[in-house]
């Protein structure tokens, strides 16, 4: 498996686990409050730090097992994979942001808008990594 595919797996699993944990926390807080909990800077910072630390640990472990692959420059095929995945990711993020703006116009709930945008960001990144993995396996035509 190429290093870039392993990297995509690490990021996808890390983001998925982190995203589930974050929204689980938000859901628990909301249940306690009886309404949608406002976004908390501390929760977002903790989430971000955990994601970054896990991603670094994952990449260090993978790079230690195959340092040559990790050191190799991105070639033309991998650049195509990254570009195509980023293209798809942009659509997912765009749709999420437009949905969040629309939701805000109808509900006026800024907290909800924050969560929808934040969720869209996570989803778009997950889509990007999933598409990268698929293109690595299926081939780039």
């Amino acid at each position, binding site marked *: 498996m*190429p290093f870039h595919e392993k990297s995509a797996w690490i990021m996808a699993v890390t983001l998925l686990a982190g995203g589930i944990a974050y929204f689980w926390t938000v859901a628990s807080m909301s249940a306690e409050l009886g309404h949608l909990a406002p976004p908390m800077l501390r929760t977002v910072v903790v989430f971000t730090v955990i994601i970054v630390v896990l991603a670094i640990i994952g990449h260090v472990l993978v790079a230690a097992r195959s340092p040559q*692959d990790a050191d*190799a420059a991105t*070639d*033309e*095929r*991998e650049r195509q994979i990254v570009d195509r995945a980023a293209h798809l990711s942009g659509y997912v993020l765009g749709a999420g942001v437009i949905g969040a703006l629309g939701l805000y116009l109808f509900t006026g709930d800024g907290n909800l808008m924050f969560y929808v945008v934040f969720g869209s960001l996570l989803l778009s990144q997950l889509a990007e990594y999933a598409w990268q993995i698929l293109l*690595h396996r*299926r*081939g*780039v*035509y």
Partner: protein
Amino acid sequence: MGRRLPFANRVRELREQQGPMTQSELGRAIGVTRQTVAAIEQGKYSPSLESAFRIAEVFGVGIEDVFYWTGPGSAGS
């Protein structure tokens, strides 16, 4: 998923005639990874024109001796 490129190649065959040359060695010679050479050989990646010329140059043959058209209008279609 099952899409095929409209051309095939003799990269593997030419590589095996050269010593044999490994996928990593060919990759280093043309500036791509071993996985990309494997993808080209399996018809899962359409290399850039530059890489195609580099491959032909490594083997000392013309580009048409490495890549050949199998799509509509080809001799076998």
